[in-house]
């Protein structure tokens, strides 16, 4: 099966998958928080486009609602909130020195290969497009986890967590041609609640250890070492 024989919709979905993967890599190598949040919003925007595309080509109007939800939540609201917190806590000028950036990047590339390798037998019976899109969304999830491991700021961890959710969402859109509306609404509000909760956590971490660098959480030992 070659890409030339696919219809335009599938080509577009595959390109979107590639771009979503690219934004994950961009996030992985980003040391500045504001730019990290911007790339996260970009990823959300790509998801919105994918959803709208799926809605259009599958003629499935309720997917438009989920596209709008994605746009409002992941492109506007959550990035806005994170951005406000970064500005509020005066962290927008800090550049986080990423340890072993090259290794993390190469690790990300190998995670992508790994996720493809893992999924290869799983979806062998179904279409190759599904396999590809699922592989990309699995690698977006794994890259989100890698982002959480490699960054030290709590806000970066939240972005990593949200990008894991983006990967799941992408898989759901591509593989199932849109979940039932109830599930989508549930997930969307879960994300919203999570974002608000994280905001409260930030506040508490900040008041108790005076920074959002999670390495500093080691200071919370009961006994001094």
């Amino acid at each position, binding site marked *: 099966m070659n890409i030339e024989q696919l219809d335009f919709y599938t080509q577009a979905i595959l390109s979107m998958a590639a771009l979503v993967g*690219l934004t994950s890599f961009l996030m992985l190598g980003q040391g500045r928080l504001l730019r990290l949040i911007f790339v996260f919003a970009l990823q959300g925007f790509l998801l919105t486009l994918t959803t709208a595309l799926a809605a259009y080509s599958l003629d499935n109007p309720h997917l438009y609602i989920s596209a709008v939800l994605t746009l409002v939540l992941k492109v506007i609201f959550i990035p806005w909130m994170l951005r406000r917190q970064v500005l509020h806590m005066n962290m927008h000028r800090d550049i986080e020195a990423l340890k072993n950036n090259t290794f993390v*990047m*190469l690790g990300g590339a190998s995670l992508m290969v790994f996720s493809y390798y893992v999924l290869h037998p799983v979806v062998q019976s179904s279409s190759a497009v599904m396999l590809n899109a699922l592989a990309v969304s699995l690698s977006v999830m794994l890259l989100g986890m890698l982002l959480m491991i490699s960054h030290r700021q709590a806000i970066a961890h939240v972005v990593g967590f949200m990008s894991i959710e983006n990967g799941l969402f992408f898989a759901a859109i591509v593989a199932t041609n849109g979940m039932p509306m109830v599930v989508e609404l549930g997930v969307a509000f879960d994300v919203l609640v999570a974002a608000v909760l994280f905001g409260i956590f930030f506040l508490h971490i900040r008041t108790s250890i005076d920074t959002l660098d999670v390495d500093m959480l080691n200071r919370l030992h009961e006994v001094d070492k």
Partner: protein
Amino acid sequence: MNWLIAILQTILFVALSPLLAGWVKCCKCWLQNRKAPSIFQPYRDLLKLTYKQPVVSEQASWLFIKAPYVIFSATVLAATVVPLIAVDLPTSASADVIVMVGFFAFARFFLALAGLDIGTAFGGMGSSREMTISSLAEPAMLMAIFTLTMTASTTNLSLAIAHVLNEGLILRPSFVFALSALILVAVAETGRIPVDNPSTHLELTMIHEAMILEYSGRHLALIEWASQLKLMLYGVLIANIFFPWGIAQSFNPQDLAYGLMAIMAKLAVLAIVLAISETLVAKMRLFRVQEYLSFAYLLGLLGMLSHIILEASR
């Protein structure tokens, strides 16, 4: 006939490259609210330099004097390989894209040697920086180009471009990555901002200018011309590989004229993009360049991976 077109095309390459450099400079001036020099200023500069007597240091060996000629001819030879206005060139058949990268490396090798030859501190520094950057940029460029060659299953540039052209508009994820990788590499290799600043002399961060600091007269003219040619080569590579529409597939005059117009329009647009990015982006610290280039390599690698993963037949 084929050979005639190939020669004509190379002459066009050599003749038009200062024009492209002039156009980039014009765009940059407009964007920065300055009065732009004439678009033909690079030609005048080259002419003036040719008339001037070259001054060569007593310590210079034969290599220093020969190097500009070697660099210029290697770059011209590289230009013969790249299809400018028409595909199906005999020169592309005899030398593929890897040979083109080889010509670039050859020219760079002599430039670095010439920088070291005089023994000034600046020359050695520039050579060492140039070699560091190019050793990182070359794999990234090859990765991006291999993505194309794997798609077209040939390393012959003419055939590859014809292949892309005949397929029509196909959204290929791998090409998105390869395009971004090639743009990043092109910026680094032609010494533009953010990697190097082409318009400054005597700045401690310079790379290309540091190597050619001792050159003057016609030697300098040749080196400047070669670097303008290199800028145009990368521009044509990007334009013709990823947006090949308009290039002539037959050798009748009408198609050729149309091809020439198309490539000039594409290059003009690319130059505007370059000028905008140069105005918006600040120059990087030298030690951040390796991060930039490893990102370019990563993009190239992702392009290759997504070609294999997303597109290749199974």
